[in-house]
Every structure is written in structure tokens, then in C-alpha cells.
């Protein structure tokens, strides 16, 4: 059995058939996972200034860039093992650098609340065994964490849910779009306008407090009465919800207070984003956007987005991420004016403009380690096939040595 590093569900029931050290077939992994396990066709090669080099020189050049930088940033991390993340944090300390990860413009805000224990939460196994009301809010699990409904939430039979989805569970979707997940929640889909989540929450709180909500009263009252009946409810909070209420997150806490039988769980895409958040939190008390400046300083200006906005960094090390592809083009002008070092298994848009590229093994496929599932459970990653590529953890160790 192998673990799939395709998303933060980290399915550990995958069978992989390997022939001549090549992946021939995967069993049980979804389409997303199968694609991740089979890997990319464009492997990254070591380079300096867009010219081929050897690994040692690339590492030396990367060390030189970081050493000479006044305010370097280390970014990425959600596709790395916990071990590599810990190394990254050490490296940031040593350099007095800023460290941030993709959660900074994703689910970081939400996960921070979990680590601060602001929400009642539970494990996915508890969901499988007990949950009766499931709310997918701003989350299209079917496309982002495709086996979420089949492995844990809606379809499986659980200890106190022997009749499974047919009679024992209700799945609800709240979204701006009738997603694939919403399609499965047939009859329990609540469509909201973009940025309409806040209004919806407030109306729901009213309905739960016995008031007539100001907005779509009939639908909201109906939803409130379903939620009230829950023995073990779960709200799966997706990125749609996080983005929409990012300026006033406490209203989700307020809502959770009104439905004491509910648990909140963050939906996480990248396989070890939560791992980075937990590692940095343990070290600093913050999940991202930290500068090691003799002491720990946390500030929004240490987010990758604001750092680009303010042009405040002068070198960038990226591990397992592609900001050129995932950030607004209006923001990345700064990225193209500073030296960038890319550590990645694959060629990315960012690596195409990088000053130094350093190839690594595909983690969870060509190198092992641990990662943290979206609900906080630690999962072992497997080394499915051997390769000549070094793990990102090993590369970071060498990079630190070369400083």
C-alpha cells in the first residue's frame, strides 16, 4: 500500500504496480491522484542563469544568492514533506529570512484558527463513523479532494451510520456554483452570490436564534431546521468560504457557537499545506508570513503577495510551488526583477525565469517522509520508486552546508 500525495486527503490505500522501476498502474487513486503518482513529463534540470549546469554548482550559486541577499524570502512548502519543511524553517532562521507558504493566499487564515483551537473539530474517521449532516461550504470536494465523499463523509457506512448515505446522512452544498459536489447534494444545494457568504451566515444565525432571517427566509429557515437536528454535524470549510469572509472570520466562530453539535473542518488541496502550518506554528505561534529577525516577527507584509506589492524582498527561494502560474499577473512584476531559485521535480512557469533551478525527487513518490492530512492526522508517505533525484530535504541540507 502506498500513500497518494495528490491532495491533503493523503489516501493511504493506494496500490501501485511497478515494473522496471516505472509506474505501470495505480489502483484506488482518483484521477487527480493517479496523475500525481504518474508524474510530469517535463523534469527539471539543474541550471544557472537559464544555462544547464551540474547540481553542485547550482546549489553553490543558490547559496551565494541567498548569502548576498539582504531580505530573502523562502516560499512554497505545501508540496514538501514535514521533514523538508522543518529544514526550510531552520534555513530561514539561519538566514534571518522571511518564510511564507501557499496557505498565505489560500486556507492559512482558517487553519490558524484551528491551531488556536477556536473551533470544535474532529477527525475524518469520526466523520465516517458518526456524521449525519455534512455541509460543503465553498468547497467542491469532488474536484479538489475527489475521494472525500466516498472515503469518509457521505457514502461509506460507519459505526453509527450503518445505512450510509441512503438514510443516515444528509449532504448539503453552499456555493456560488452548482459544482460536482453540489450535484451530489441534490435537493440540498444553496446557491449564494460571490461574496455572499457573510450575508448567508448572518441570516442563518438569525434563523438559528428563532428570528426570521432578512434574506431568503424560506430556504434559510429550512436549512436551519436541518442543522438543528444534527447529532454529529460537520461543516467542511472550503477556500470559497475563506476568501469570502477573510475580513471578518469571527462570524464563522459565531455560527459554530449556535450549532453545538457541529464540527468545522478545513478543506485543504495541496497535500502538506497543513503540515507547514503546523510546523511553523509549533516553532513561532504563527502559520505563515513570518520573518526571523533575531526574534520572530509576524506581519501581513511578510506574505508573498504583499512582499511583491511592496517589492520588499531581494531574493526568493521557491520549493515545490509555481507562483508565476498561481498569482495574479498584476502582482508578479516584482518576481521577474529579483533572483529566483526554484527547487521542484518539474519545470514550472516560474522555473522558466529562474536564476537557478535545482531538481528534486517527487515527494511521496520518489522519496518518503511524513505529511499532515487536512484533519491534522500524521500520515506516512511512501517511496514508490527509486530515482537519482535527491529529496528536497536533502537538497536543503546541502544548501545550508554551502552557506
Amino acid at each position, binding site marked *: 500500500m502506498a500513500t497518494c500525495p495528490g491532495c491533503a486527503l493523503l489516501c493511504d*490505500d493506494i496500490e501501485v504496480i511497478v515494473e522496471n522501476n516505472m509506474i505501470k498502474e*495505480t489502483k*484506488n487513486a482518483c484521477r487527480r491522484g*493517479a496523475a500525481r503518482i504518474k508524474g510530469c513529463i517535463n523534469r527539471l534540470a539543474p541550471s544557472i542563469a537559464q544555462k544547464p549546469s551540474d547540481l553542485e554548482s547550482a546549489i553553490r550559486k543558490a547559496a551565494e544568492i541567498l548569502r548576498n541577499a539582504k531580505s530573502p524570502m523562502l516560499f512554497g512548502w505545501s508540496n514538501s514533506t514535514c521533514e523538508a519543511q522543518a529544514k526550510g524553517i531552520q534555513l530561514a532562521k539561519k538566514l534571518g529570512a522571511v518564510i511564507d507558504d501557499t496557505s498565505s493566499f489560500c486556507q492559512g487564515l482558517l487553519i490558524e484558527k484551528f491551531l488556536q483551537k477556536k473551533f470544535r473539530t474532529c477527525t475524518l474517521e469520526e466523520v465516517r463513523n458518526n456524521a449525519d449532516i455534512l455541509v460543503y461550504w465553498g468547497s467542491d470536494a469532488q474536484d479538489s479532494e475527489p475521494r472525500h465523499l466516498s472515503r469518509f463523509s457521505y457514502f*461509506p457506512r460507519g459505526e453509527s451510520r450503518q445505512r450510509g448515505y441512503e438514510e443516515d446522512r444528509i449532504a448539503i452544498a453552499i456555493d456560488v456554483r452548482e459544482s460536482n459536489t453540489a450535484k451530489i447534494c*441534490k435537493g440540498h444545494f444553496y446557491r449564494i452570490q460571490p461574496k455572499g457568504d457573510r450575508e448567508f451566515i448572518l441570516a442563518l444565525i438569525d434563523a438559528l436564534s428563532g428570528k426570521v432571517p432578512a434574506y431568503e427566509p424560506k430556504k434559510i429557515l429550512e436549512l436551519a431546521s436541518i442543522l438543528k437536528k444534527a447529532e454529529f454535524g460537520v461543516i467542511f470549510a472550503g477556500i470559497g468560504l475563506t476568501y469570502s469572509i477573510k475580513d471578518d472570520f469571527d462570524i464563522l466562530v459565531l455560527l459554530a457557537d449556535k450549532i453545538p453539535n457541529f464540527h468545522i473542518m478545513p478543506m485543504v488541496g495541496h497535500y502538506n499545506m497543513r503540515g507547514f502550518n503546523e510546523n511553523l506554528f509549533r516553532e513561532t505561534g504563527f502559520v505563515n508570513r513570518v520573518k526571523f529577525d533575531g526574534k520572530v516577527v509576524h506581519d501581513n507584509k511578510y506574505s508573498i503577495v504583499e512582499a511583491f506589492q511592496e517589492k520588499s524582498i531581494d531574493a526568493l527561494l521557491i520549493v515545490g510551488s509555481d507562483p508565476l502560474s498561481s498569482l495574479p499577473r498584476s502582482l508578479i512584476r516584482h518576481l521577474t526583477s529579483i533572483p529566483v531559485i526554484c527547487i521542484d521535480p518539474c519545470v514550472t512557469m516560474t522555473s522558466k525565469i529562474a536564476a537557478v533551478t535545482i531538481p528534486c525527487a517527487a515527494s511521496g513518490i520518489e522519496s518518503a517522509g511524513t505529511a499532515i492530512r487536512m484533519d491534522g492526522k500524521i500520515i506516512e508517505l511512501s517511496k514508490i520508486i527509486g530515482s537519482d533525484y535527491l529529496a528536497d530535504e536533502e537538497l536543503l541540507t546541502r544548501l545550508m552546508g554551502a552557506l
Partner: protein
Amino acid sequence: MVTVMELYQLLPKTNCKICGESTCMAFSVALLGRKKNISDCTPILEENFKKQKEKLESLLLPSAGAGETGMIVHPEICTGCGNCVVACPVDVANDPRGAAIGCAPTNDKVIFRVIDGKVVASNIKECRRFGKNKVLCYACIDPCPTGAIEFV
């Protein structure tokens, strides 16, 4: 998803009856239901229908093998989510410690398995829609996010 009309549009439309059906339309229905093969229509085997024949083959290919039960699986639109694996009552009954509780199937008696990220159906004769006590089961159709499973 292939429809009778799509198949019909590709046939010679002469209603010559060589295939044993009374019209090309009837032949389309039989094709979709896997009761006839493309080669039963000998006129379409001729060179000038080559393109149309190839198109027909590609439309019908994904479901080849589903045979008499009429189940058609469209792997090209399947996400491999496994909802059908866990929801099918046959899988639940035959694999209570695997598929039934959301885990990977633990034996070969299940109908649905996910291979290379796409669903593969086997043991189709076990399906509740067939046999002596058949019932109109929708447990693999309703949970599918993309309509990758259908019965004709």
C-alpha cells in the same frame, strides 16, 4: 454521452434491412443497447463510409465489454472519485470491510474498482438490475458527479 440520434446520423440511412433491423433508426437503438455490432451493417463497411464507421467505433468503444447487461461506463469523463464503488449495494454486500466502509476494495467480488484514476466495472452480472429478483437500482448513477455510468 452517446445518443441514438448521434449513432443514427452516422449510418447510411438507406433502411436496407441488411442488418436484420427494419430501419437504420432501429439499428441505432440495437447498437446502443449492444444487441448488434457495427459490422452487422455491411453497407457501412464499404470504403466511402470509412470515416463514419471510425466515428461510430470511437463512440461505442468505451462501453465495449459491458455486454448484455447494458451498463455503459464512460472512463473519459470519470473522475475516479470512487462514489460508485462505495455506494453500489453489491459492493457493500460483497466487501463489508472494504468498499462498504469507504476503503479500497479488499476482494475481487466488487463490481466497481478504480484503476489508473478511472472506474472499471466487472462482475456486472451481479448487478441488481439483472437476474431473477431485479430491481431498478440507481446507486451508481445518482452518486456519480459526471454521469460516467449509464444503463441503456
